[in-house]
């Protein structure tokens, strides 16, 4: 649990909510989104996930001087985690998602990443057919089958890092290549190799062995991407004709989109706008929807913590 918690400023009847904030507390980055009552995305920002988590979530929410913020002005402490008990400005609501969501106290609601990514994608794309979201994050990968109205089914990768950002990171480290150079290098491949192993450590060993046999780094990186695709598609069968990609990894490694596409005959692929922020946007949208549905303002009911 966290030391500091958000303290709603008004216990009695407050003003109508004007801004809904979504926090996606992921394993490597904390993403923040704000939307207004009309669902317009007002702001997106992020920072690395550091500990203590609560302080850094507050800091990510607070933003820098002059930036839009749900917290009262004196809570902005540039360069240091927010201490004390940050207070909300009137008319602000915060909803959280991501692995860290249950460690943030005093927020107005929380939801799983599955639902958050769906809401973020659907809100931005307004799709009118069934589709599948592939969300590759720092420590897990998800395949979400959705209708325009709801999540129908989902799968999360099991047990190990294969097929996730951590897998790419580990192998980039083995190859001694900076992460940002990976897509460029992969484009220079001249041969299709296959990494067979299921496990990050074993894949690392395969890579080392191939390197020792003089394999080009470009080909190994390309193989690494192909193996991410393979691992993700092993999770569940894709039964829709539209694939939407979200999550930070797709953002940094857009080369994955065509690699997924080529595994299917006739499929429409879409890289979600603000792919990395779909979860945060979805969390904010969740707040907006709940507020609209309930017609009451949750923050009025929150006990001060």
């Amino acid at each position, binding site marked *: 649990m966290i030391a500091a918690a958000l303290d709603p400023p008004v216990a009695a009847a407050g003003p109508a909510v004007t801004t809904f904030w979504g926090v996606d507390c992921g394993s490597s980055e904390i993403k923040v989104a704000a939307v207004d009552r009309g669902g317009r995305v007002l702001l997106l920002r992020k920072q690395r996930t550091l500990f203590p988590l609560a302080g850094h979530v507050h800091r990510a929410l607070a933003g820098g001087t002059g930036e839009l913020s749900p917290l009262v002005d004196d809570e902005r402490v540039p360069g240091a985690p927010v201490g004390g008990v940050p207070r909300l400005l009137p008319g602000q609501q915060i909803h959280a998602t991501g692995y860290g969501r249950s460690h943030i106290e005093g927020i107005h609601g929380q939801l799983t990443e*599955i*639902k958050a990514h769906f809401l973020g994608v659907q809100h931005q794309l307004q799709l009118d057919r069934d589709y599948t979201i592939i969300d590759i994050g720092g420590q897990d990968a998800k395949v979400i089958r959705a209708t325009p109205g*709801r999540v129908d089914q*989902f799968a999360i990768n099991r047990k190990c890092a294969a097929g996730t950002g951590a897998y790419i990171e580990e192998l980039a480290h083995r190859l001694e290549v900076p992460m940002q150079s990976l897509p460029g290098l992969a484009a220079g491949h001249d041969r299709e190799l296959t990494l067979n192993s299921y496990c990050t450590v074993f894949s690392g060993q395969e890579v080392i062995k191939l390197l020792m046999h003089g394999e080009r780094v470009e080909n190994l990186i390309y193989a690494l991407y192909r193996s991410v695709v393979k691992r993700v598609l092993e999770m569940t069968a894709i039964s829709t004709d539209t694939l939407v990609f979200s999550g930070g990894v797709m953002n940094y490694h857009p080369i994955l989109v065509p690699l997924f596409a080529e595994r299917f005959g006739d499929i429409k692929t879409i890289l979600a706008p603000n792919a990395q922020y779909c979860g945060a946007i979805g969390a904010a949208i969740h707040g907006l929807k709940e507020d609209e549905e309930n017609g009451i303002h949750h923050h009025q009911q929150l006990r001060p913590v």
Partner: protein
Amino acid sequence: MMRDYFADLGAASRDPARKVAWCTSVGPAEILRALGFAVYFPENHGALLGATRMSSETIPVANAHGYSPEICSYLTSDVGACLKGVTPLTKAYGLEEAPRPDVLVYCTNQCKDVMHWFGWYARRWSVPLLGIHPPTHVAEVRPEHVADVVAQYRHLIVQLEAISGRKLDPAELERAVARSREATDLWEEVLNTGTARPSPLSFFDGAIYMGPIVVLRGTEIAVDYYRALLAEMQDRVAAATAAVPGERKRIYWEGMPVWGRLRHLSEVFQRNRAAVVASTYCNSWIFSDFDPRQPLPSMARAYTRIFINRDDACKEAYLLRLAGQFGIDGIVYHAARTCPNNTNSHYGMPERLRAQGLPGVVIDGDLNDLRCFSDEQSTTVIEAFVETL
């Protein structure tokens, strides 16, 4: 009651005039009781090791002695505990060690790990190892299956008579089977109170309440216990007392409990106002076939017909029937890493049942080996699943 049971086991193992038999959880306990054995169930010990999380210390010991992390973690928890010289029975019931067996009796109706498990003790203590090997994964229990198992029981009885030094009294066996039947019927009624809305009990309560039907079936004590428990559950139903206040969704738990995380998982469901109202696991000790007029054939039928020993078509029909009876919104399948026998999500069952309108989700974990379980991931999967229902 459990304290008395273990105190008696402790006394029996110290008393040279009494004999202790170890028995698998769905083994032929009634025969052992009728022959006067004090009966001890290592799987119950395994569950205690898991629930106390002592298994995290004992499994690695067994692993280091050549018993793989991939095999039954009841086995590795228990064998590791023996090697380490520790037992949760000390703290819970004042027993210094698990009662030493005079004979080990297993039945492979559940798995073959029990044979290897008891085999380890047979070698360690030079104790006879006796097994019943019924036909496995049957679609239906046919007369020839019953005849096969009854013949094995008869052979077993001869061997056990030699160990216990007394002849089996048929009336004693009839009484044991009658008491097992009575207890199991009451247990079924207890579990069926879960059909009420809101349910008065959850799987997580059931996993605790089921102790006596495992270790004391065939005794009057179990009958009394379940009679009292049933009355309590009926009161709760009458008063509409909910196991999960504000129950919104009703879930079926398929597979083993995650013993070291019962509380955590119970809280996850509770938070999401989802009540786990039925489970394969608790239902596995309902033996409606027991018939004191035909003790051996009815035992053969009951112990061969158990869920774990059936083919997938039977299992699916059973799950669909219970889903209807309990008003289930969805199934959570626990894929227990070290018990494929109690894991039913590996061969496409969730997909097949979903196609028949019964959605499900798989969580990865294990009965006792918490190295295979992630709080974070299981929470996300369960919460996201409840969101979709």
